[in-house]
Each structure stands twice: as C-alpha cells, then as structure tokens.
C-alpha cells in the first residue's frame, strides 16, 4: 500500500513544486504551493507523523501560504509590470547546478538503509510532545523568542511610517 500512496503523493508534491517555479503569475504559484504542501502532509501521514502532518496543513497551508496570498493581493502588481523572465545562460547554469545537486543527493541516499528495529510512533502527538517538553525544552522556548522577533520585525518593516 505504501509504495502506491508514496508514488501518488510524491508525484503531486513534485508536480506542485514544478508549477510553483514555472508560473508567471504569483497567485497561480501560491495555489500550486498549497497543492505541493498538502501532498507533503500526506507523506507525513504515511510515515506515521500525524502531528507534523496536522501542523504542516495548519501552519503552512493555513498560515504561510495565506500570508503569501495576502501580500500578493496587497501589492497587486499589474500583469504588465511583472518581471520579464527570459532564458539566459546564467539561468541554464543555475538549473544545471540544481540538477547536479539533485543527482548528488540521489547518489548519497541511494543505499541508505534504516536499522531493522521496530518503527515506533515517533511522529504522534505523544511522542513529539514528550520530546519537545523534555529533551528539547530549551530549543522550544527559544523558538518563541524567534517568533516574537519575527512578529516585531514584520510589524516594523511593513509599517508605512517608521
């Protein structure tokens, strides 16, 4: 069962991602991004990471992409003012480099095998919550500081009169 679902959602995720980087209109790109992110959430479920799948949907699709869409609509760049994207040697090089990185990543992970121990419920609410509030408590608390800084920074930057 898993290979079939993996292939399906993996294909959706990759297709969404490709759409994101190829759409001229940012709104189309944002909607493609949501598709990709949902597919990844499904992959998380496939790996028994239910909590993370939920977070993925809520935070990414629900908050981040919505923020993108807000901004797209807020600044509302007219179609004719959008950057003109032309194929150049430089861009080709960029694609080649990224392709090389992909191939290297594939080569590196080709023979990766997990130990034969039983797969626990590592992605469940209980497991993540336990780890988060014991071993990684400090990192978790620091995250709150990071978010606070992001809130303050975003507010200050986006204000009309600073």
């Amino acid at each position: 069962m898993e290979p079939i679902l993996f292939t399906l959602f993996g294909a959706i995720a990759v297709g969404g991602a490709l759409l994101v980087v190829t759409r001229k209109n940012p709104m189309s790109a944002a909607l493609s991004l949501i598709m990709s992110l949902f597919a990844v959430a499904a992959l998380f479920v496939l790996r028994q990471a239910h909590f993370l799948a939920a977070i993925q949907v809520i935070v990414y699709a629900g908050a981040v992409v919505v923020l993108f869409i807000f901004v797209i609509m807020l600044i509302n760049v007219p179609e004719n003012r959008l950057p003109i994207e032309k194929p150049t040697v430089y861009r080709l090089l960029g694609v080649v480099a990224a392709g090389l990185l992909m191939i290297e990543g594939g080569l590196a992970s080709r023979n990766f095998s997990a130990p034969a121990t039983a797969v626990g419920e590592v992605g469940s609410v209980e497991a993540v919550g336990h780890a988060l509030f014991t071993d990684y408590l400090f990192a978790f608390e620091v995250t709150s500081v990071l978010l606070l800084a992001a809130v303050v920074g975003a507010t200050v930057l986006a204000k009309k009169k600073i």
Partner: protein
Amino acid sequence: MVSALSNIHEYLWLILAFPLAGVVLNGIIALVAERPLLLPADGHGHDDHGGHGDAHGGHHETPAYRKLVAFIAPGMIFAAFVVAVLSVLQLTRMPAEARTVVQTLFPWIQAGGLSVSVALQLDPLSSVMILVVTGVGFLIHVYSVGYMSHEPAFARFFFYLNLFMFSMLTLVLGSSYLLMFVGWEGVGLCSYLLIGFWYEKDSASTAGKKAFVVNRVGDFGFLLAMFLVFWNFGTLNYTDVMAKIPSLQHSGILTTGLATAITLLMFVGATGKSAQIPLYVWLPDAMEGPTPVSALIHAATMVTAGVYMVARSNALFMLAPFTMGTVAVIGAATAIFAASMGICQKDIKRVLAYSTVSQLGYMFLACGVGAFGAGIFHLMTHAFFKALLFLGSGSVIHAMSGEQDMMKMGSLRKHTPITFWTMFIGTLAIAGIPGLAGFFSKDEILWRAFSSDHGSPFLWAVAAVAAGTTAFYMFRLIFLTFFGASRMDKEVEKHVHESPFSMTIPLMVLAALSICGGWLGIPAALGGSNYFEKWLEPIFEGGHKAAEAATEAIGHGAMAHHDPMEFILMGASVAVALFGIAIAYYLYMVRPEKPAKIAEGNPNLYRLVYNKYFVDELYEWLIIRRIVDWSIWLWQMFDVQFIDAIVNGVAKTVRSAGDETRKIQTGVVGNYAFSILLGAVFIVGYLIWR
C-alpha cells in the same frame, strides 16, 4: 662600617648602581620638570652663547628641582667613588697574584656556545680606571653644577652625564668583551648626546653626528675583533680568553696571523674611540659640547677607552708584533701630527682638543712598544691635568661670557687668579716639567719608546719633538690667555670675574693631583719604587709571558736594570720642553707681533696648518663624497627603478585584478544564491567521491 662591609667586593655592583640611580632620578626630573623645554615651541633661552654658563643672565630663585639635581648627580658619583676606593683598598690588601675579583650578577645571554653573564671584574687595571673615572668624574660633576647653573636643561644635562658615568663604569668594570662593548656603545651614545647638547646650534648637532658616525667605523672593527675572539676562543670573558691563550697557541689555532687580525681590528676600534689617525677628526669638533663634557668625556675618560682596551688585551697584542708596530707608529704619528695642528688654533678648547689627541697618541705609543703600564700611567696623569686644563678653560670661557677665541683674551691673570694658577700648574704638568705628574708618565713613555724591544730611537725622536711642540702650544695658550695686553671687547671686560667655588674647588683638587699624581710612579732610576708599574704587573706579565713563548725572546727584563741612557734621555726631553717654552715666551711675550709676521712669511704653510692639513676636506672628497654619490646612485637606480617598481607593480596588479573581480558582486540576490548552490554542489560532491 668597615666591619659591616667586611667584604666590600660583594658590593662592587654598587659602583654601577649609584650612577644608574642618578640616571633614573634625573631622567624622571628632566621629563617632569623640564618638559616645556622638550617641546619645539621653545625658542628663547638658547641664544648665541645661550648655555655657556653666562653669569649675567639675571639672578632669580633657583627652582627646587635644580637643587635636587645638583645634589643627586654629584652625590651618586661620590657614593660610587667611595665604594670604588673601599674596593681598591681591599684589593691592595690581597696578595698580588690573587688580585682579580669577578662578581657575577646575573646570566645575560645563553645562546648556543655563547654564554655571557653580566659580571664585574675588579683587578689592578680596572681599579685604576674606576678610581680615575669616579674621582675625576665626581670633580667634574661638582664643577658642572656651577658651570651649567644658568642652563635651562639642567636636569637633562646631568641625566646624560650620569648615564655616561654608568656606561663608562660598565666599560671598565665589565668582565667580558661583550660587556665592554655595551659600555663602549653607551659612552658613544652619551658622547653624541652631550656634544649635541645645544642641539639648536647647527654646528653642535653636526659635530655630534660626526662623532657618532666616525665612532661607528671604529666600533665595526671592535665588533669584528669580538667575533674573531669568540670564533676561536669560544668565550668572551677576559679571564677565560687569557687562560686559553697558551693552549690555543700550543694547538696551533692561535697563530701570529690570527692574533694580528684580532688585534688590528681591536685597534681600529681604539682609533675610533680614542681619536687616533685616521679617525681622530671627530674629537676637535666635539668641543661644541659644554666644557665639562669636553673635560670628562673627551679628555679624561671616554677617549682613553681605546687605551684601556689595548691594555686589557695586552696578552693578544704581545703575540702580534706587526700590530704592536702599527700601534706604536700610529701613536707617535698622531702625537706629532695633532701637536702640530694645535700650534695655530685660536679657539682655546680646540688647542686642548688637539693636545688631547696628541697625548692619546703617547699612550698608544707606550702600548705599542709594550709598555702598557706606562700607557695606563699616562692615562691617569693625563686624566688629571687635561681635566684640569679643560675645566680651567671652561672657567676662562665662563669669565669671558662665552668667548672662546684666544685672540680676544689676554691679561686674565689679574681677574681670575685661581683659574690662572691652577691652569698654569696643569700646563707645567703637560709640558713635562720635572716633579709634576706629566713628567713622570711622559718620560716613562719616552724612555720605553727608546729602550724597549719594540721601540726605536726614531720613535723616541718623534715623541720628543711632539713633547717640545706640546710645551710650545700650551704655553702659547697660557701667554695668550693670561698674560700680555688685554684684547677683550670692552663690554666683555666689564664682566670678567672669577668663577664660583663650585668651579674653582675642583680646579684646585685637580691641580693638586696634577702635581702629586705622578709620584705613584717615580721610576727606579730616580730612586722611586715605581709603585704604579708594580701594581699593574699582574695584568701585563701574562702578555709578556705569552710573547716570550711565541718568539722565544730572551732578556725581556731590560726594564729593571739601570741605564745611564735613561738620564740622558730624561734630560733631553726636559731640554726640549724648556726649548718649546722658551720659543713660546719669545714669540708671545717678548715679540708679540712676530707670530703674525711668520704666518705672513709662509702663507701656504700657515694655511695648511691652520686648516688642520685639510684632512677634513680630504675625507670629505675621498670618502664622504664617494659614499654620497653611491647612495644617490642606489637611490635613483636601485631604489626607484627596482624596489619601487616591484612594489608599485604589485599594487597595480592587485588593483587591476580587483577591478575585474569585483564585477562578480552584481548586487542581485539570485547570483549570490547561485554561488551558495555551487558551493553546496562541490561540498556534497566532495563528500560523495572523496
């Protein structure tokens, strides 16, 4: 007191520590109290004869710090003198063979085979030197307090003077050639600083530089000699070097050639420091410094360092007959050459300067004929009477409100009786009148120049003529300055006065020493015991022994037996001196118009002598001009076209490379991201395929 310091030799370091304390204290005072003088804005206070102790600069309250300096500087030297006297007294109570005390203070340099400690060596030779240096030095310090009383940079002067004393005592007390070299350079530095003490005066700062540069030539020789000694002996300590001479001679390492090389290089150093031909040119110009400096450094102590070095290395010199001959010939030549230059000088201090060069020539003549003891003896008596003469001339200059030209003096005898009498005694002493210090030492040298294995009648004749010339020009100085009609400016004449006690008392003490100083070394021929010679014997017998071993010479005991010749020569030299005095009397007292006529009659000869044989000009043309031309060539060809071209080329290359490579910085974030991506590709690639 004596019981508490039962072994005063453990306190030898105090002899150095006291002047050093003076250096530190006076240096601090000079920095704190005389700071305004160091700033460039200060222009006044140094007019034409600004520092010459002009007594008429107006009386105002002496600042407290000056009183403190006037107490510290001579006080420290006096303390050192007391320690020196106590040390030497204890040395006399020891058996003659054991009179070498080495006190190691701390290890200094430990590198490879080189091991040098800061150690002090007290033996008969250095004991003579420390007594002369601290004793005469103390008197000159006292004198300077009076002489420099109107000098704004009072503390700076004594700071330099104490630093000089410290360096000089390091030079004579050090137990190794390296420590001697430290003192050697230290006194050179102080000499430079003190000659250029009135550095606003162009001639003074130039003279300071000249002294420094000329001395550098000599120092180079000394350094090379030191390298040779270390290379072959493996040590620089006097005692070790002397102890190794026989064994090295035996093993064939220490050949006559090597000894000649070492000693000739040492002698190059000595000619620089002790103003011998060909490096004497700096000493006459050094008279630009304050007169106490001329007395202390350029007459009594520093310039004798070369003699001390030669005497210290006597065992090596005795192994090199060629060097001995060179030393003797250079000494005799300098003696007569400098004496002849002194005849025509008009500046009172320059006469004394040439006299000093000439007398130093005598000392080297003595060393060159193997009579090191006589050389050191003359060094001591010369320190007394030449310091006296310089201080007396300073007193005259003080009285004349800074005038140094003897042609503008005359009849000062009435105004400055103490100066006159003391200077007269000094002149008698230097002229070699029997009974005074100079007679005994000079005659000893003349006799040994004649009779020694290394001597010859020719050397004696040259030295005797020089002695007569010395008598002539010294009495010329006395007659021109103190006798005859007054040739003073009217304004100056009103102010002529005797110097204060702080200046006249040192004069009187030195006059007494100039009379009695020679009695230490009355030769056996005159019924004396020549105590001085015996005192130094332990130092020099090693050299004689080594020389005998090298040459298989026999009958070196000639010095002991009585020779009627000695009396004949003694009489001859006295006669020559009296003859010189008589000529001076005739020319400057009986027929005062005659000298000008003689000069007019032989204009070329007069010009030659008056201009010091144009030696300075010759050096200028022969050496300095060449070096300057070569330096200009190096500057224009090598420096500008080669070195600068390399430097500029590198800069241009880097600049143009930067001009091109900075275009990578496009300012577009995507391009930077691409760089990161490329980096990631390479790093991951490396991790996979490593």
